[in-house]
Structures are given as C-alpha cells and as structure tokens.
C-alpha cells in the first residue's frame, strides 16, 4: 500500500498491526485484542482524516497509484468486453480504451481513460493522456453506439489531453471539440463518471453526459492545481492554494450543479477497497441507466443540450 503524506499516522498504526499479525503465531490472546483495538483506532483516524480532506489532499487521493482504474472497473462491471481500436485515420491511442460489453444484462459502449498501474503499462497508456487519435476513436465509438442504439458509459481519469508537438500538429483541439460535440449529439443515454482525475478539455471531451457522476474524492477542473499555480501564482509551490481556489472537489461541483451525483467511496478512499468502490459505482450507474433508457432518443439529446446550456446558472452559496 502506498501512503500519502497526510496518512502518516495511519501508516504507523497499520504498520504496528502488521507487526502484531506476524507475532500472532505465538498464540497469545492479548495480541488479537490489541490488533482489534488498533484497528478501531485506524478506522477512527481514517474517518476523521477522510471526512475533511482538503482540496489538495483530495487531488492526491484522486491520483493515488492504487486507486482503481478504468480496466479494473471494466473487469468487474462489464462482461463480454470486446475492445475496439483505432480512429480509422492515424493510430490507435491506448490512453483511451473503448469497446462493447454487457453491463448487468445491457449492451453498453464503454469508453474511458486508462492510466496504467506500473511503469510499463503507464508508458503504454501514455499515463492516460490522450492524443487526437484517442478522441477520434472515442467519437467513432460513440457514433457507433448511437447507430446501434446502445447506451454509452464514459469513465474519466486523466491529467489532461497530451501536450505535445505531434498532438498539436494533428489537431488536438479539433479532436476534443468534435468529441464534445458528439457527446452532445448522440440519441442514446450517455452516463459519464469522473473516477479519478478530470483534467480539463481532455476530461470534458468524454464527460458531457446526461448524467455526470463523480466519486467522492475525485477531482474535476479546468486545469491541474499545479498548472494553475504556475500560471496565476507564478510558482508551482502554490498548488495547494490553487486547489482550494479552483473548487475542484465533488462536493463543490455538486453544489455548482456541474455534476449530478456524488458516489461515496469506502472508508479511507477508493484505493483502500476497490471492490466496494466499483460495485457501489455499478449500482449508481445501473440506477441512472434504467431511468435514461426509458426516455426517447431525441428527448435525451435535447435534455443533454439544455443541461449544458444552463451550466453556470447556479453559484456557490
């Protein structure tokens, strides 16, 4: 388990528990009791810490290396998953994965960012930062889903679209714009979930959905706290301040009505219990999907457009 800076006291306690567990072979009953006592303490500490995470702490949790990623969600929630590749013009971008599968009995098109879980897979998936071909693939798959009247599920987890010369040369901006346009144009249910980091244009390219869900400790912002700090504070060290100012937490975004629902994470964050996180999200998705599937395609499209047109009418109190 990787511990974050602010989790140090928790890490120490859990270290102790681990030590005691190793000792517990020497059948002393006291040890079990001690472990229980410490575990309660850990839970209490976790509850206290995670109930009032600062926006900067949330940014760290949202990027936690052990946090479940797209492929984990697909593995647990989608059967018969058949990945589809390529933008039909330049390349297959592995930062965005998409394909057909069955979610609780219903055919769905799943599209999302994959960050990778170790050095090799992170490089393969370009750390979840997509190039134009990634957004063009997403667009193609959304259009395919629309054509076959299959609901679309997008899972967003990216620091942002890839900033690079080659990406610009191939029209990164155009690719993102078309992807947003397609999100807003399709006549099938589109459910978007911010599962970790919702980084800027690279995120909204997949997230203009009928329903936008967000995990409790995920973040969603126009720019990363670091990027904002270096531009407005002229110092990357001010990332903490920028995180506060940007209002990037699920709670703030819910108040702003940018997102529709907050999906609770288990005690101590998604990374402490991926299974529960994933199945909870599955329940939320299923509920939204059932409602949306009852609505005619043209109405779905109109409502989605109305919803995004109305964005910003609600301020924070």
């Amino acid at each position, binding site marked *: 388990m990787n511990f974050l800076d602010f989790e140090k006291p928790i890490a120490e306690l859990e270290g102790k528990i681990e030590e005691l567990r190793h000792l517990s072979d020497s059948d002393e009953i006291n040890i079990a009791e001690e472990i229980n006592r410490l575990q309660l303490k850990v839970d209490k500490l976790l509850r206290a810490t995670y109930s009032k995470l600062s926006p900067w702490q949330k940014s760290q949790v949202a990027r936690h290396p052990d946090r479940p990623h797209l492929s984990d969600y697909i593995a647990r929630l989608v059967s*018969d998953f*058949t*990945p*589809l*590749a*390529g*933008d*039909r*013009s*330049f*390349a*297959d971008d592995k930062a965005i994965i998409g394909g*057909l*599968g*069955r979610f609780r*009995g*219903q*055919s769905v098109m799943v599209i999302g960012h994959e960050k990778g879980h170790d050095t090799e897979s992170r490089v393969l998936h370009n750390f979840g930062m997509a190039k134009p*071909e990634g957004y063009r*693939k997403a667009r193609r798959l959304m259009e*395919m889903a629309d*054509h*076959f*009247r*299959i*609901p679309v599920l997008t899972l967003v987890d990216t620091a942002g679209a890839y900033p690079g010369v080659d990406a610009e040369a191939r029209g990164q901006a155009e690719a993102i714009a078309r992807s947003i346009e397609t999100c807003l*144009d399709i006549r*099938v249910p589109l459910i978007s979930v911010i599962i970790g980091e919702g980084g800027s244009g690279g995120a909204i390219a997949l997230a203009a959905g009928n329903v936008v869900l967000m995990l409790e400790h995920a973040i969603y912002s126009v720019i990363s706290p670091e990027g904002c700090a270096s531009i407005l504070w002229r110092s990357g060290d001010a990332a903490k301040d920028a995180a506060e100012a940007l209002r990037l937490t699920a709670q703030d975004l819910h108040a702003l009505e940018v997102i529709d629902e907050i999906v609770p994470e288990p005690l101590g964050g998604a990374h402490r219990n991926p299974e529960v996180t994933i199945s909870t999200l599955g329940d939320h998705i299923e509920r939204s*999907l*059932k409602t949306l*599937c*009852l*609505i*005619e*395609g*043209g*109405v779905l*499209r*109109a*409502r989605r457009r*109305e919803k995004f047109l109305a964005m910003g009418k609600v301020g924070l109190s």
Partner: protein
Amino acid sequence: MNWLTNFVRPKIQRLVRPREVPENLWDKCPQCGHMIFHRDLAKTLSVCPHCDHHMRLEVKARLASLFDGGQYQRIELPKSVVDPLKFRDSKRYVDRLRDSQAKTSEQDAIVVAHGKIGGTNTVIAAFNFAFMGGSMGMAVGDGIVAAAELAILQDAALILIPASGGARMQEGILSLMQMARTTVAVDKVKEKGLPYIVLLTDPTTGGVSASFAMLGDIHISEPGAVIGFAGARVIETTIREKLPDGFQRAEYLLEHGMVDMVVHRHKLPETLATLLGLLRHRGPAGQVLSLPVDIPDSFETDTGD
C-alpha cells in the same frame, strides 16, 4: 509455332514424363518451412501447427468454421454480364474465366451464404482467392449487392470476408465501378441499423480495400494478413526505399488505427458471436428506446443540424 508449343509439346511431355506422386498431400508453411500433412492442416483451419502462421483458407472451410455447427445455406447468385469488354491479354478473358471455373467449380470469386453465428442471423459474402486472385468484377459486385439485400430481407447481420488482390483488370472501368456499387450496397445495410462487420483476410488490397472493406462498423483482421491499397512492390519502386518489416500487415494496421482487432482464426467464431450478441441482443433496456414516448413541450426535438 503456337499450335506446336501450346498443344503438341505438352501432350508429348505428358507421355514421356514419369507419373508423379499425388499432389497436395503435404503443404509447406511459407513462414517456418515445415511440411504439414493436409489432414492436419484441415484440422487447424490452415493455421501452421508449428509457427501459427495463418495460411489462406479455402472458402468452404472458412464458411463452415464460422457458422454455428458448420451449418449454412448458400444462395444462388444472379447471372452477371460476362466479359463486357471482350478483353484479351496473353489469353482471352473468357478462357481465363473458364479455367478458373473448372479449377474451383465456382462461377466467380465470391460465395454468399446465410446461417447463424452465436444464434444471430448472419449473411456472409466471402471471396474465393483461388478464383483469379479473388479479383472484383461485375459478378463479385453482384454477389456483394445480393448479400446486402439478403441481410436486409432477413434482418440479419452482414459479414464480408475479402481475400482479394483488388479490381479485376479484365473488366476495365466496370470493375472500378464495383467500388461505388459495393459501397452503396453496404451503406444500405448500415442505414437499416444492421451490423456490418468486415473480416479482413490475406490479402485485402487495391480496389477492394479502398471500398466496402474499409467501411465496416467493425474491422477484424486475421494475424499477418496483408492489407493495403498499393502493392508493396509498386511503392518500393516508386519511392526507391526499402519498406519497413511488417508493412501493410494486420498488426501494422491495428497500430495505425485502421482495424479494431487482430483475431486468431480459431477465436473468430467466438469473437463474432460475442460482437453480434452485443449489437443485436442489447438487453431489456435497449429495446425500450424504440418505443414512442410522449415528448414534453419544454424540450425541443429538432432532428439534428
């Protein structure tokens, strides 16, 4: 001289030459060079048991391998115009046609059949590479049009399996026109909301690749298949450069965004069944979408701009 070389000499040679062992009992894998007994090769669907190289698969074996339980019905194809240009190169086109017909016992380079894949009604039009390199002329175009119409009639999915060098030169401009004709045919299927899957096999090049074969909802390729527009030799002589390894192979196309997946021949039935299941049997919620629902006044329902 012609009569002597073409007719008399082979006859004499046939008399003089010793009788040969029956051919085709053993095939040599072009990749690893192993000799493979023909029955073994039939069992593996022409995939080399030593190096997994996918050799070309005979069209009937292909159809039997894809349809559920190997069960399918072929449809009779319409009579097409024969040799519209009265074409002749070193040989008359009608003679070439006759030779290929004799060799393959087929009328032309395409076979259309229907049956079920994973329980889903499916029409397949498969190219026969053994027939003049699977080249596309009027008859092949007619076959594809017929397959598309059949898919629409049966409310079935359409799978096209090209194995073709491209357009049939002997039919000149009319073979070029098949690119447009087949495009209309497959678009009609797509307009009906029926799945159109292309299974790219070795080779898919020229006018075939540059028309219906690149217009599928989903593109599946067999490993190592050559897929491209211009032939590698033509490109090499034009740019005067050596081409990279694996150029125009299925894996190269996957990397370059042109195909959705490269699938082992033995996994094809399963993959197709899954895909067709997902596209055609969408589950309870998917069905509801088609029902008319009262549209609230507050929502505009423009039909798109």
